């Protein structure tokens, strides 16, 4: 059925009684939520929201799969990813080295759009599902090739309890523990 325009009348309120009842209704709903508040806090970092598997968090390189095509560096909308030339052992003659290109990333610029992950023809790049990491200085956000291959340390996960946000019909969002308690 195609969409259509529907002209509607504005709901009219008027009269002395409506004024009283509307005021009361507004007050009652305020009292309802005052007595039974449907709210919660996430006590970060004691608790932290564990994000879904498909979340576009930090991007990590799997160097073995990389074929140096530079597609990731070319698609990057914010020019966060760059190719660098690195000497690697020659595939047939181990004593020789050849230059090969690998991507490195600057997390000062990255906007986490995930285009690089999607364009990689060999799935050499992947997302981890967190991105709340603090750096002490800006220089640390330039990742060299070694850092780019390791998933960054996630201190929040070591200290905090993972929680998950669930969409609930009654409460909207509900905080539930992400995993079953152990022991």
């Amino acid at each position: 059925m195609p969409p259509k325009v529907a002209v509607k009348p504005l709901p009219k309120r008027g009269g002395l009684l409506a004024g009283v009842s509307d005021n009361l209704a507004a007050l009652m709903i305020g009292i309802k939520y005052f007595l039974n508040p449907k709210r919660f806090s996430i006590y970060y970092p004691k608790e932290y929201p564990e994000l879904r598997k498909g979340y576009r968090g930090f991007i990590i390189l799997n160097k073995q799969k990389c074929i140096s095509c530079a597609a990731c560096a070319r698609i990057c909308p914010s020019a966060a990813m760059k190719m660098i030339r690195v000497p690697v052992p020659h595939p047939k003659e181990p004593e020789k080295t050849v230059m090969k290109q690998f991507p490195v990333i600057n997390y000062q610029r990255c906007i986490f759009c995930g285009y690089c992950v999607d364009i990689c023809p060999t799935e050499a790049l992947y997302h981890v599902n967190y991105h709340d990491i603090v750096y002490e200085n800006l220089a640390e956000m330039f990742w060299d090739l070694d850092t780019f291959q390791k998933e960054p340390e996630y201190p929040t996960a070591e200290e905090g309890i993972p929680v998950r946000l669930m969409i609930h019909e009654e409460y909207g969002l509900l905080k539930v523990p992400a995993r079953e308690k152990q022991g």
Partner: protein
Amino acid sequence: MVEDVRIYGGWKDELGLKVVPSKKIGKDLYEVFIGPQHPGSGHMRITVRLDGDIIVEADPDIGYVHRTMEKLGEIRGWIKPIPLFERMAIHDACNITMPYVLAVEKLMGVEPPLRAKYLRSLLCEINRIGAHLYGFAIFGVFLGHSTMYMWAMGDREVFIELAEALTGARLTHSYPLPGGARRDIPADFPDMARRAVNYMRKRLKEYEKIFLNNPVIRSRLEGVGVISKGLAAELGIVGPNARASGIGYDVRIVEPYDAYPELDFEVPVFREGDALARTMVRVEEIKQSLRIIEQAVEWLEKNPREPIVDKYLYGKYPPLHKKIMESEGRAKLLPISAAMKVPKGRAIGRAETGRGETIYYVESDGGVNPYRVRIVTASARNAIAFKYVLPGHKIMDLPAIYGSLDYFPPESDR
């Protein structure tokens, strides 16, 4: 100096520098600058001239967040502008990039499969609800109703959570691509969406009680900032603001795109044209968007999964890409899309964003970059309303009118 002020064309100050006032200021008028630092005004300034506390003249001064979107769109290929254009209305990200994607699709001659169309419409509606709730929140705090601010911002989080489950990012989804969408729905998404829809329906009834039917709020909105049908048409106002004035204009009806022609929904129109009608249009639109989400989710669940990119593009996919599409439902980009060339031509894309119609004019000279990207957003077309609606009202009605117009400066300034 007061006498000099009355002269058009400026005067010289003590240092001999020429001072040019934008308008003649009457002798007994106050000139009040609302913004750009005012907490209520956003990144814009309204210069209002007051006679007592009646506004006799209002001058919207826009452009504080101009970021040269159009020029930047010309230098970064065809795919890369999508994350850039999202920054215009970051809580309406899928809607605001939709027309660009539609225009590029016309140029490339690709057509997304039906499943991708449904996915895109689904995210568009999630974004529309998010945008309207954001508007309510700001509107509520304008009127001093901080409960509404908290509630709307809190309930918006539900839909952000939905969008995150679908796309992997809270706000900057970068979801539509020329010829498809980026991800299929996860397995638990339909249940989540249904719970969110049911929750929001209940919630809207409570909004009515505490906000819309609240006598304090109604007395501030009823009959305030009336835009007549004729004036709305003359000024070229679009979106919910036009529909509150009795103009049944919606791009989803006049030029249907994506899955909208197949969905069953109404476009609510009110005749009154005052601040209350503009608010009610948004409430009704949220209800319709909830209906669309239900239908889209049902369709997506019922129909078997298929590739969510254009047939031609899917034909070019290597085996690994096809495998990922089947197993994860993730559409890979072809490496060529980093530097693809689009055939010569011109195309116009139109879409109904949260605040009204947005148009992109995209011209290609056959190169790797767009030759021209012209963007006309909904807020840019609604900004002129301030000049014609505010005069005649008291200064205390300004927040009510500003909030009900739901003007969003970053979208307007581009």
